[in-house]
């Protein structure tokens, strides 16, 4: 098993004085390539802070984070941005699709950020949308899609540029149970590959069965990590 994400003694605090909040208290954590890892825990336990740091959007106060061997501490702001563009795919809780763009155009954004032409980006996005069962909805705008369909577009957007790391923030929180299960099944089917790690932050215990590994967080620390046989997609 290759280590994809390696966090060592990561700390992060916000605010000063009485308002200071210690979000991460020496987190040591690893996620393997070819696996889906769930970060679970109560609200405020530091899941979002940790996933933000792993995705290169937040600089820890101390400790180190390496993603596929790249030490994020050593990357400049510009290189971190380039790292996110090339190596990270995002699935957000509220989807964050651009309302003025069609499903295909939304899914093609990471490729456009990387400099692909609109035609090439749309073509590759369309192929992925077809695999996600959205062939008939490619030209629809987000407000013409159901929540489940929007989440599938978001999954396509996270995978279209074939990143090494996919981070998902509460991907089922805005979906009903059935749509949530379907979205996770698709995510597991398409995202989990031998050369890629998938980290999912969630409260939703109904999707725990999709994980290869579950890291339980509390009060800014990883309390324990459980390994399980993931549900077949």
């Amino acid at each position: 098993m290759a280590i994809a994400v390696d966090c060592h003694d990561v700390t992060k605090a916000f605010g000063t004085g009485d308002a200071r909040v210690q979000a991460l208290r020496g987190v040591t954590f690893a996620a393997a390539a070819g696996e889906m890892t769930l970060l679970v825990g109560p609200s405020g336990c530091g899941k979002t802070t940790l996933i933000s740091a792993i995705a290169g959007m937040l600089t820890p106060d101390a400790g180190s984070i390496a993603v596929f061997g790249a030490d994020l501490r050593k990357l400049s702001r510009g290189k971190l941005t380039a790292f996110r563009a090339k190596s990270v795919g995002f699935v957000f809780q509220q989807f964050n699709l651009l309302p003025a763009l069609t499903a295909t155009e939304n899914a093609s954004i990471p490729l456009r950020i990387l400099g692909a032409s609109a035609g090439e980006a749309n073509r590759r996005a369309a192929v992925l949308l077809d695999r996600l069962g959205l062939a008939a909805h490619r030209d629809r705008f987000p407000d013409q899609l159901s929540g489940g369909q929007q989440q599938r577009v978001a999954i396509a957007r996270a995978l279209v540029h074939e990143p090494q790391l996919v981070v998902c923030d509460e991907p089922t929180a805005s979906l009903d149970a059935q749509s949530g299960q379907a979205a996770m099944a698709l995510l597991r089917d398409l995202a989990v590959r031998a050369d890629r790690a998938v980290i999912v932050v969630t409260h939703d215990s109904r999707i725990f069965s999709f994980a290869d590994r579950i890291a339980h967080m509390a009060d800014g620390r990883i309390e324990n990590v459980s390994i399980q046989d993931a549900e077949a997609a």
Partner: protein
Amino acid sequence: MAVVALRMLFGDRAKYLGLVFGVAFATLLVTQQGGMFVGLMTRTASVIEDVREADIWVMDPQALYIDTVRALRDTDLGRVRGVPGVAWAVPFYKASAPVKTLDGRIDNALLLGLDDATLIGVSHDVKLGRVEDLRQPDAIAIDEAGYLRLWPGEKLRLGRELELNDHRAMVVAITGASAAFTANIIIHTPYTRALDYLPQGRDTLSFVLARAAPGQTPAAVARAIAARTGLQALSSADFRWKTIDYYLAKTGIPISFGLVIVLGVVVGIAIVGLTFNMFVAENLRQYGALKAMGLSDLRLVGLVLLQGTVVGLMGFGIGLGLAASFFEFATQPPGALRGFSLPWWVAAGDAGLTALIVLLAMFASLRRVLVLDPAIVFR
């Protein structure tokens, strides 16, 4: 990514139209008022501009601008002619005169008396008739707009009669003389006849018009005239600016127009700034998502600037088009705004102001985008 930026902009139609309206409104206000101001200032010196043959104006030493006429002595004409470097010099008369048509319509005219022999100073833009016919008895030339004020709705026709200060006058030519600041009707007639129309005291010579001899500059010859005669002599260009400067410095016109222009800029910045700020605020999560997905600050600023540029160009185009239409339709003779126009450099200046409005309006919004934490998308 430019297409994405434009789709974001056009997708929020209400705000897009609000932004374009803000820029268009400011452009219209600034361009229209700027053009009016320039037109008004140009009109103060239109008599000087219309006299194309002469390049030197000689006048009383105390004269402040063209409308402060204090007559020179008749002998001053000969003195000017005697100054080395003067190719020729002719008398020029300028006064205000009441006019009355035979059917009783009255108005006030600017009466310009031209050298009897040469008719130097007459408008070169002749719409109907011949200026040479001014040598006929009681003959005058009237400008087209003045004609239409006295005989509204009637076709231009020669031979019409009117009373000029209770003296008979007959129209033998209709000109396109530039509109003057102080009168709506411009009448040209030979110098001696002008004196007959408006008999005055001992001294009657308003100005001496002169031309510098070949190889001499008007400014140098004007200095020589002033030195030799003690009169005030200025090149046409200097006299034009002296007149304009007088109105700029001694009247409330610049303040009035300036306030409206400043108001246009402020209102433009306010409308565009607030609307753009709302646009950015409502799209902040989208910008954050793009930032999280690896769009650099530089490219994000580029997207916002592109959106602002499109809004600026659209608004400026509409505002400029409306202002140009105003000048096209509102300045036809005999309208009070005849002769007003929109100089290219006013439009160019307004383009710069519009860019400033858009940039200032976008400044606060750009800052919000730049300091935006991409992790906002996880909250």
